[in-house]
């Protein structure tokens, strides 16, 4: 991440200077910083709501039931997490929220799942294998119906807006599957640096 961070910023400044857009690049620092705080603050309310809901779901045993239902699948993908961990239920809830395009529920629940995975992580500053797989699943953007995109298509009078559902679903399924497989392969070669950063 250190190199990526360096690269993104230095390349922007160099490219900005060449394109004569250096002033815009400098202004982007301020607008980007403002936007970050706006994004974080806009999350507070909805995050509180879903963390509250998820706590009830955990206390009443609902998460445990969901975990048991999907155990045959998660056992293979998250083999380093104990089978009865609440993390499994949270992951399932987050995946469901993503699949139905419930973005404002998916983020808080995803973070909740990440926190549960962090409990099983030995080196708290380094991502465990399970965390990397969960992240790969989340960034692949698996979604059944891309509602916003369809709304734009309806707006311009596209002949059959829902026809894009099938190709879109196929694309995200391919990306999603590949993400999990790649994460599984990379974890063999990319060991935690000090050899104790894996899952307990």
């Amino acid at each position: 991440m250190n190199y990526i961070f360096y690269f993104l910023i230095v390349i922007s400044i160099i490219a900005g200077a060449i394109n004569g857009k250096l002033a815009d690049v400098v202004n982007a620092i301020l607008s980007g910083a403002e936007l970050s705080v706006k994004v974080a603050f806009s999350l507070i309310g909805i995050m509180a709501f879903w963390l509250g809901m998820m706590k009830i779901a955990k206390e009443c045993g609902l998460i445990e039931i969901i975990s048991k239902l999907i155990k045959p699948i998660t056992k293979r993908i998250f083999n380093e997490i104990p089978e009865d961990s609440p993390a499994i239920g949270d992951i399932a809830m987050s995946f469901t929220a993503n699949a139905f395009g419930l973005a404002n529920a998916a983020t808080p629940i995803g973070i909740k799942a990440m926190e549960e995975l962090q409990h099983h992580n030995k080196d708290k500053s380094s991502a465990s294998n399970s965390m990397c797989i969960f992240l790969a699943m989340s960034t692949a953007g698996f979604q059944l119906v891309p509602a916003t995109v369809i709304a734009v298509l309806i707006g311009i009078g596209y002949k059959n807006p829902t026809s894009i559902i099938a190709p879109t679903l196929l694309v995200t399924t391919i990306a999603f599957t590949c993400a999990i497989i790649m994460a599984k392969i990379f974890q063999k070669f990319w060991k935690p640096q000090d050899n104790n950063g894996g899952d307990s």
Partner: protein
Amino acid sequence: MFQGVMNFISLWALPAIIVLILTMGLIKKVPIYEVFTDGAKEGFKVSINIIPYLVAIIVAISMLRASGIIELTGELLAPVLFHFNVPADIIPIMIVRSLSGSAALGIFSDIAHNLGPDNYATTLAAVMVGSSETTFYVLAVYFGAVGIKKLRYALLVGLLADLIGIIAAVSICNFMYI
């Protein structure tokens, strides 16, 4: 039919989950109000925790977008991608997709309105945007919330999966619509 079912599920998923959680809580004699407020307390802390990570990522990406390098890369890639039936208008979406969801949606909107419903670029853009998730944002928020600083291979996998998604979108649309 399929669309009808999906709309129904999208509309009812959240209310159903909420009712299910609350009902089951009551049945199991969980003090739902206390537990809810107790869990919700964390919301503020988590949101504040992710600010440093968001600032790092969003500032860097805002700078990158302002520098004009995305357009420049697009121009360099255009002749190559032309051979794969990728219209030049699509290229900014390919590059921006992993970096900023709102930017990708914005470019898609532009393409849709300027090129119209019958253009292949509109369809390809729709599939490409519809199948994407903003890798950098998810990474910053999810790992930021729990204080992960060493990402190991997480970003690499995310970006490779994005690349695979782009290739899949181009091939599938080529096959279906050309």
